[in-house]
């Protein structure tokens, strides 16, 4: 499959070097041909890279091997229908001169380039609004550069007003001071957030209103930027797992699994069958939890408080099973590189089945309030539309993309952990309105329950670890009684799992969409660089296209329907 892509790229771009890394092709591109190459990659029907998944940079300042330039920028592209993944690597000779912006080609590039600028100080010429995104506007320096000290905090005294940005946005709509004078009205500027019940976390939604209609919308994020990526560079590979819990904290275990899967695929580590099935069961279970919280909160925003009890009570009840299994309610940290932390406890099947039945009942109860409800239909159908093309351009993934009618699901399209052996459907919406997003999530809960029931029948007995002590801690009996075991344990704890040098991207279908990890390893036990491709970030980047022209009240439920989780959005 990827051979055909390599051939095509070889014919179209004979000057560029291509190589295969895991399931993606990496292509080096010169800065001066970047925009032309990117345009062709997107528009050539043979290539059709309609999705820009992520942009990130690498700072090679302290990298053991010498590189020709200090910075490189990596673009991760996907052709979803053919399951092609392409990384375009560009060398940056001078970060201040930077690279040309690709934000006219993909909507997703707008925020992605701002993040690279903020974290690495690489300029993108031609970008419409290049300013900081995660760090505050009074911040000096670029924290992900290797010469920035991790503990050098900078105090912010004042919040950015965003007035210039919203006026610029209004101007692109053809609304300025003179039009306002002509129709004898005034724009009202309204802030939702950063501390507002409708934002489900800390996001600032800044709107310009004409009556109740949103004329322009600018969003500010970064209020929960906790330095995940910089912190991860100072931790061993296994020590990063607790940090991944706190990305999408509504489905912590999914992040754990996504992260270790990314490391294991680079190590070429085949985990045991039982561990695979455990991961399938648990990831689907947590996908359900995530959707339950999202739907509960979204329906509360609409005024349906009863739904909150029906849906959230089942999540609360699930915590009994989760905390019995993992020891924690929310932050599970349940995976390890090479397997799982613990096996299922005895009698888990009955608990799981009981819980699944309870969830089915809760969801059915909630659906009985929603499905025939005129108010819900009127409020959600046809509002805040997201056409498939816009969704792809802004890098929407997961349920939000599927609600727009694009049947892309990594579990089907690039299956891992035997997902191809399970019988399940991928629910898709038709128009991409709020109703579709809600219903896709409801349907996915039932599909996930189906997968769990199948996996529970098929799960084999056996080990949950690979017994390879380069990666996995030896049993305690060996640690206490034998010098090899002790040395092994010591080395794994202090130095971490040694991961061979290289750069790779690996992705996973999380509850919110494609959760990807971009790693650079220098061969040591700590990641040289670890970038998360958070599904929320790109959903939020396209938020303004959905709400402009809609009512302010719809913006609130729209935010709930795309399920923004601060931990993942800002990292």
């Amino acid at each position: 499959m990827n051979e055909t892509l390599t051939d095509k790229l070889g014919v179209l771009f004979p000057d560029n070097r291509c190589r295969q890394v895991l399931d993606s092709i990496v292509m080096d591109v010169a800065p001066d041909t970047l925009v032309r190459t990117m345009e062709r990659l997107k528009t050539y029907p043979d290539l059709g890279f309609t999705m820009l998944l992520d942009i990130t940079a690498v700072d090679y300042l302290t990298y053991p091997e010498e590189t020709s330039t200090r910075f490189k920028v990596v673009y991760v592209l996907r052709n979803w229908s053919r399951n092609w993944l392409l990384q375009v690597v560009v060398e940056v000779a001078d970060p201040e001169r930077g690279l040309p912006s690709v934000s006219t080609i993909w909507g997703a590039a707008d925020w992605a380039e701002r993040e690279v600028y903020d974290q690495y100080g690489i300029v993108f010429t031609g970008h419409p609004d290049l300013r900081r995104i995660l760090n505050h506007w009074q911040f000096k320096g670029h924290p992900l550069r290797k010469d920035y000290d991790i503990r050098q905090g900078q105090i912010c005294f004042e919040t950015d007003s965003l007035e210039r940005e919203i006026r610029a946005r209004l101007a692109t709509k053809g609304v300025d001071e003179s039009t306002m004078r002509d129709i004898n009205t005034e724009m009202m500027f309204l802030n939702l957030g950063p501390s507002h019940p409708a934002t489900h976390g800390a996001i600032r939604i800044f709107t310009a209103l004409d009556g109740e209609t949103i004329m322009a919308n600018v969003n500010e994020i970064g209020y929960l930027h906790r330095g995940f990526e910089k912190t991860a560079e100072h931790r061993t590979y296994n020590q990063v797992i607790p940090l991944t819990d706190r990305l999408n904290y509504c489905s912590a275990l999914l992040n754990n699994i996504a992260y270790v899967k990314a490391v294991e695929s680079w190590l070429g580590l085949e985990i045991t069958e039982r561990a695979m099935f455990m991961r399938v069961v648990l990831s689907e279970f947590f996908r359900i939890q995530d959707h339950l919280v999202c739907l509960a909160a979204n329906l509360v925003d609409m005024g349906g408080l009863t739904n909150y009890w029906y849906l959230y009570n089942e999540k609360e009840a699930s915590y009994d099973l989760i905390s019995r299994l993992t020891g924690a309610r929310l932050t599970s940290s349940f995976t390890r590189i090479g397997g799982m932390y613990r096996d299922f406890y005895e009698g888990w099947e009955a608990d799981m089945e009981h819980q699944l039945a309870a969830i089915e009942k809760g969801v059915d109860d909630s659906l009985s309030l929603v499905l025939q409800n005129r108010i819900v239909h009127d409020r959600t159908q046809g509002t805040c539309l997201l056409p498939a093309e816009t969704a792809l351009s802004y890098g929407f993934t997961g349920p939000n993309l599927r609600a727009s009618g694009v049947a892309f699901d990594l579990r089907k399209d690039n299956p891992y952990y035997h997902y191809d052996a399970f019988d399940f459907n991928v629910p898709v919406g038709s128009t991409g309105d709020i109703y579709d997003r809600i219903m896709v999530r409801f349907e996915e809960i039932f599909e996930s329950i189906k997968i769990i029931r199948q996996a529970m029948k098929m799960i084999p007995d056996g080990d949950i670890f690979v017994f390879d002590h380069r990666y996995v801690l030896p049993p305690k009996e060996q640690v206490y009684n034998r010098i090899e075991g002790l040395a092994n344990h010591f080395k794994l704890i202090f130095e971490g799992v040694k991961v061979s040098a290289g750069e790779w991207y690996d992705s996973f279908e999380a509850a919110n969409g494609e959760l990807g990890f971009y790693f650079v390893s220098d061969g040591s036990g700590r990641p040289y660089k670890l970038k998360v491709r958070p599904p929320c970030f790109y959903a939020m980047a396209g938020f303004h296209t959905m709400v402009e022209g809609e009512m302010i009240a719809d913006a609130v439920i729209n935010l709930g329907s795309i399920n923004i989780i601060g931990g993942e959005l800002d990292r």
Partner: protein
Amino acid sequence: MALGIEASLGDSIVTTKLDAIVNWGRQYSLWPMVFGTACCAIEFMSAAASQHDISRFGAEVVRFSPRQADLMLVCGTISYKQAPILKRIYEQMPEPKWVVAMGACASSGGIYDNYCTVQGIDTVIPVDVYISGCPPRPEAVLDALIKIQEQIRTESVLVDRHKDFKGILD
């Protein structure tokens, strides 16, 4: 059976200290303002939901307007970008007010000892009760609520508790 001055006032009048009566009222009708930013806010949702039911302690009237609240629950990590907002919202709350720092991040920065995280919200606003845990269980939230209630009981209504507080943003 009234004694002293109460004996001469009749059955319909009870005498007490101002502190006792005002604090009794404040204690059992706390109106929380949830400053939820991260994972801890999810656990606060659990504390508010049916199973743990925060209304058993008289604090279920969750206000999202600081002007109507007297108990601030800071649930989650506070970054330097967020800090001025936290301070502003705290200042918008009318006196008397109490603050709970929920979880490791709000108490001390938690596992995020880095360039963007405030190392404990007590560098920005005064804090009355800290809850440990990452995130704390809902029971711990209820425990903190009881601690605040005990603290209120012993306070004097005349003392301005945080007159001399100076944070990094002051």
